[in-house]
């Protein structure tokens, strides 16, 4: 099987080199710094190797809806799509994404470890090829917290010790978990408690204690802006955004890694591609998610590579020249107390708890 793939790849290279017209594929991603890191780490080397021209489409935020529409219309124009894991699960459930067999369709680690073992638990859906581990965590203004900077997550709920506004995402996911954790629920019990009506109310009641001091964000860029303005004392956002605030923009901000929530971002291949396009997409995926490529991406953005075998290869930031490993959410120092986004739970409860959350917000 592996040999066959290699042969196919070789054949693809030959046709690409021999064909008069350059092949083209559309890869969908988020835009901004993240797309730039993919361009450097994946697209450019892949184009150089295979001769395929890659078109970037910054539509990941609308990917779920648009893929569904494309699928219904029977005209899928995207070849590879970057989505967060929960969206991948939804797409897989709806039959909109191609199922992938990790061991045959993804590259093994350099030492021969199979891809499914290398990715491990991170293969959360049959359709999803993980790319990075990012985390949603807190940043705080070092000049606004006095002499005792916050070290644990419950500082967010402690208005006496840390007065001022905090920014939270305008959705229940992550917020209710943090609330329960700081309301005395043991980490292992959080989702059992959240399954119950009382548990959900308990989480909202805890959030109620800080509701007046919360600024709700909906785009990942909001919290960095609010922190830079001094509009908030602390706020949650993706760790890569905080990295750029702290290291690139040199703002007086520091990270609070406690109870960070790991989440995954990765690729899916839309269902319903023609055989030729599917083959090309699989070829790209095989290349872009191998050990070296995933480690390369960390040169441009501070997200952890999803393969265990990539971690030792993470080097320095391409422009700033700082060591990237300590800035990875997966670094042992940062990952002393973490959550992994519970995909199963939220696939079921998202709509229900979201309705309650919105009703609570509007109260």
């Amino acid at each position: 099987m592996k040999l066959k793939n290699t042969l196919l790849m070789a054949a693809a290279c030959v046709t690409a080199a021999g064909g008069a017209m350059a092949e083209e594929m559309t890869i969908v991603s988020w835009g901004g710094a993240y797309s730039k890191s993919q361009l450097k780490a994946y697209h450019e080397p892949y184009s150089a190797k295979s001769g395929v021209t890659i078109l970037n489409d910054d539509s990941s935020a609308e990917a779920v809806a648009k893929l569904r529409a494309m699928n219904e219309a029977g005209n899928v124009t995207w070849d590879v799509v970057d989505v967060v894991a929960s969206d991948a699960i939804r797409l897989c459930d709806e039959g909109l994404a191609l199922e992938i067999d990790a061991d045959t369709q993804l590259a093994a680690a350099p030492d021969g470890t199979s891809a499914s073992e290398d990715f491990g638990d991170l293969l959360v859906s049959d359709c999803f090829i993980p790319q990075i581990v990012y985390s949603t965590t807190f940043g705080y203004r070092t000049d606004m917290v006095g002499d005792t900077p916050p070290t644990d997550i419950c500082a967010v709920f402690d208005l006496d010790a840390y007065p001022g506004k905090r920014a939270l995402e305008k959705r229940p996911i992550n917020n209710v978990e943090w609330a329960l954790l700081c309301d005395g629920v043991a980490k292992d019990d959080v989702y059992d408690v959240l399954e119950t009506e009382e548990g959900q109310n308990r989480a909202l009641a805890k959030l109620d204690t800080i509701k007046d001091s919360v600024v709700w964000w909906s785009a990942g860029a909001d919290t960095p802006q609010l922190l830079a303005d001094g509009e908030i004392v602390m706020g949650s956002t993706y760790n890569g955004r905080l990295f750029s605030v702290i290291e690139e923009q040199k703002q007086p901000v520091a990270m609070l890694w406690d109870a960070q929530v790991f989440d995954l971002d990765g690729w899916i291949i839309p269902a319903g591609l023609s055989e030729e396009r599917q083959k090309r997409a699989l070829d790209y995926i095989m290349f872009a998610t191998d050990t070296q490529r995933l480690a390369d991406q960390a040169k441009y953005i501070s997200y952890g590579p999803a393969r265990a075998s990539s971690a030792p290869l993470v080097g320095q930031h391409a422009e700033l020249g700082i060591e990237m490993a300590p800035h990875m959410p997966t670094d042992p120092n940062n990952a002393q107390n973490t959550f992994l986004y519970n995909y199963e739970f939220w696939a079921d409860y998202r709509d229900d708890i979201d309705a309650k959350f919105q009703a609570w917000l509007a109260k």
Partner: protein
Amino acid sequence: MAALTPISRKPLSLVLPTVAVAGAVAGMFVGASNGSVVLGMLGGAIAMAAVASVYITILKNEQYARWINIIGSGLLGFLFGGLLGGILGLLAGWFFAFFIYWMYEGRYRRKLLPYMTARQVFWHYAFRVICGAIFTFLITPILVVLPLSFNAQDFFTFTPEMLRLDPEGYSLKHYRDFFSNNEWQRSFKNSLIIAPIATVISVSLGTLAAIGLSQSHVPGRRLIMGVLISPMIVPLIISATGMFFFYSDIGRFLEGTLGMNKNFVGYVKVVLAHAVLGIPFVIITVTATLVGFDRSLTRAAANMGAGPVKTFFSIQMPLILPGVISGGLFAFITSFDEVVVILFVGSASQKTLPWQMFTGLREQISPTILAVATILVVFSIALLTTVELLRRRSERLRGLSPA
């Protein structure tokens, strides 16, 4: 404009209280920042009244009074509030010098009708002040946000360096980013292609339909009108998803059956989608201008042997042109500023400016979008001013005095 009313000097009993009131308002701000609003108001009122009476009764020379006032006030401001205070002081000094003599010499009546009562004069100016406030409301956010495009940092924040007017705090890097970044350039170009074509389509089809609608005895007129303006009233996100299906079919037909270039088809789809969104505005404006249209004019033209096309372009079109233009303006803006439908109907190669801005705001707050906005604002000021100057020129040439 020529003076309507001969002016005369006003008695001190009118001038001093008015100046005192203005002084009190100014004093309020000064007082507030120094701890006592009441004291500030009192001080401001007394000071301004005193200064005014000195100028009018003792100094009696407007030029001297003006310069003394400006420089004195500027110095005071500088002593208490540094550079910024000094500038504010100069401005305040200029304003009060102007205001005192404007009142005293009765200049405020010069441009008004002679028979207006005192109360009417008062309302006239009060109304202007209100309008000024509303214009300020309209324009301030834009004026405030434009300097941020020169920010040396990647945030929408006035940094302390910027407030100190320190050159360190300013940079042109966001403009460089706009001009050197392919994504921005491409999306700008796309917007400049898509918006005008979409506008032309909605204006031409819309104007024709509006003319049809304005004829008497159109069956089902109300229903047709409802259909035609429906793109305006369906929530955009629903229009976007619904239209996606239609344009996906169209796209397949054009590419597959007619074998057209994929990129070209992409533009066709977006242009048509935007044209539909602009149509309601054209329909509404043009029907409105046609309501007052004198039908006998077209009949007269037909009488004299002009064909329908000739009649349309020589008689009807010039008369309804204002409506067509403003409809076109709305349609243009609809396309130029549209960010929901394009996300669904367009693909990467048709990325427009708003789409790029939207990604920019979501993924990385970057003042580049403010740099774009600044460029557009400067460009449109230039455009509007040119149009106005041309209008005045043609008026002069036609011998009409500018009203």
